[in-house]
């Protein structure tokens, strides 16, 4: 990827406010172009048609949980880097997510600049 191209990131979280807040944080670094959706099914559609460098998904969503969404994303493209964000981080969840190909599982309480660091590493 050339430096002039902005990396495209897709955010999936059932909470619209959370999506907006995260978008604001991530777009602070002008290197990224962020899209978001609160609907996991819509997300899958966007992934099929759009060119994303990274997908960040929430774990707990009412219509489809993060692990399920992760599995489906991997069916579309096995090597998509996916970060899972969760309000409750646990060893069991981390293990499950990583087994299903998640790049990393992060707490929603991560410091925003640390999150940016993780995003940078995932895309690199």
């Amino acid at each position, binding site marked *: 990827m050339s430096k002039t191209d902005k990396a495209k990131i897709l955010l999936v979280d059932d*909470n619209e*406010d*959370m999506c907006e*807040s*995260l978008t*604001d*944080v991530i777009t*602070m670094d002008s290197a990224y172009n962020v899209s978001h959706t609160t609907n996991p099914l819509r997300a899958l559609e966007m992934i099929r048609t759009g060119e994303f460098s990274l997908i960040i998904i929430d774990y*707990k969503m009412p219509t489809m949980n993060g692990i399920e969404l992760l599995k489906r994303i991997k069916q579309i493209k096995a090597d998509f880097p996916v970060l899972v964000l969760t*309000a*409750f981080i*646990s*060893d*069991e*969840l981390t293990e499950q997510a990583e087994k299903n190909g998640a790049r990393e599982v992060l707490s*929603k*309480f991560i*410091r*925003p*600049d640390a999150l940016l660091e993780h995003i940078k590493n995932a895309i690199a």
Partner: protein
Amino acid sequence: MKYIPKGRSQLKIKRIFICLSISLIIFFVLYGFITPDIISAEKPLVFAGNDRFAPYSYLSDDSPDGYSVDLMKILSAAINADIRIKLMPWERCIEELKTGKIDGLLGVPIYKEREAYVNYSRPVAEIDFAIFVESGNSYVNSIKSLEGTVVGVHKESLITETLLKDKRIKILETESVIEALNKLKNREVTAVIAEKNVALYYIQQKKIEGIKIAGSPVGPVYEYALAVRKGKTNLLKEINRGLTILEENSTLKKVKRKWFGLRLVEPFPWKMVVFMTAGISGVMLILVGILWVISLNATVKIKTGQIQQMSQKMIEKDKLAVLGKLAGQIAHELRTPLSIINNSVFLLHKEGSKNRELFEKRLRILEDKIKLTSNILESILSYSRVKAEIAATISVKECIEEVLKDMDIQKSIEQNISYEKEESLTVFMDFHQLYSVLRNVILNSIQDMGKKGRLTIHAFLSDDNSTVNVRICDTGRGITESAENEIFNLFYTSKITGTGLGLPISKSIIETNNGRIYLEKTSKKGSCFMVELPFSQTK
């Protein structure tokens, strides 16, 4: 009055005569109704049976005895018929039946070929065959396994035909079942195949020891019935009517139990169990399907009941655990606004207040989310307000016992509970609060162990008598190094269903009471938690 006028006397005799005649007529008419024609025959009916077929029919001190004999006696009473019983050698029974000397047979296996000269009643028993071997013999379990051996079978046994099909089995015919069994005891034959009830009867009667039944029943199963001479259909109808009565009032069952109630200890019938299990599973599957549909409604009701029960429990004594579950949901809600607040603060830092519009937006978000957070917290607090604390000097031992009693820990978890100086194990705090803490720690231990393990609780007074200590140990998977420092932090949990509230709240309760709670040690073989509370002397 000696003199009776002639006219009156004649009248009286006439009256008596008329009365007598009417009575007789009524008697005969009634008699005709009660006893059907076939049985009103002057001469009694004769039924014959094999005299050497115990326990069905045999001579005991020259008088007939056995299942068929008993049955016939009861049957003749039930149908109100005069039936004589005669036991003699089997060949003679058949011969006399064919020549019309007797009217029927007490009992005979239902056998198509005999239908030329008999009519069978409904079946009254079953004749099946079993393999009898020495108790120590464990390799015989079927006819196939008898190939190459000598098998004792009594003369004219119905099983002989089946056995002859397998040319590799050598048959040794004996005069009687007893003779065959004796040959088995003398090791002249490897096994005896005989009608099960007959052989069992002799084994019991002659007190023959060291013989068992091997495998499942073998060969064909014959139905055993009464029989009448061909064409005596009225008699047959009566017999069947009587048998129905005996079946309906369970007399038949009682007679059967009397004669066939004896059983040897049989080897475990694996084959049958497999078939039965398969059969039962099939039926169960269908039933489960049906029940599933029916039970949906019931399940809803039960669940509703459980939820009600849960809230009831919460009110009473289990506030902490239930609070954890309820609060877990709320806490998730709490995390989202908090993380938005977190992001907004970060953005405010970075962006400053130069862009007024953006700055206002961030502040508005902060305000909104703080308000939301506060509302959520309020709702959690309303759950968590443990009933007004009533502190008193309480016994730690009593509290532990109450917790264990209420938890109903499964038996596969070994419990090792011990107390040192139990009368001195007293602290000054609210009983319910201590209960909640102990329950929470013990519950964690048990959940960590799963189905099996050992729970060790040791309560003791510290060396300097300043604190009452409770050590709770399990043989679970232990706590990972990274988690060791986290377990008392709010919302940390290693379980996907955990809430991360139990231990932090326990900690705050214990610390409020000037005590300490900590992880004493942990490894892959288990963990120990320690609760220390200031010792309080009983007044």
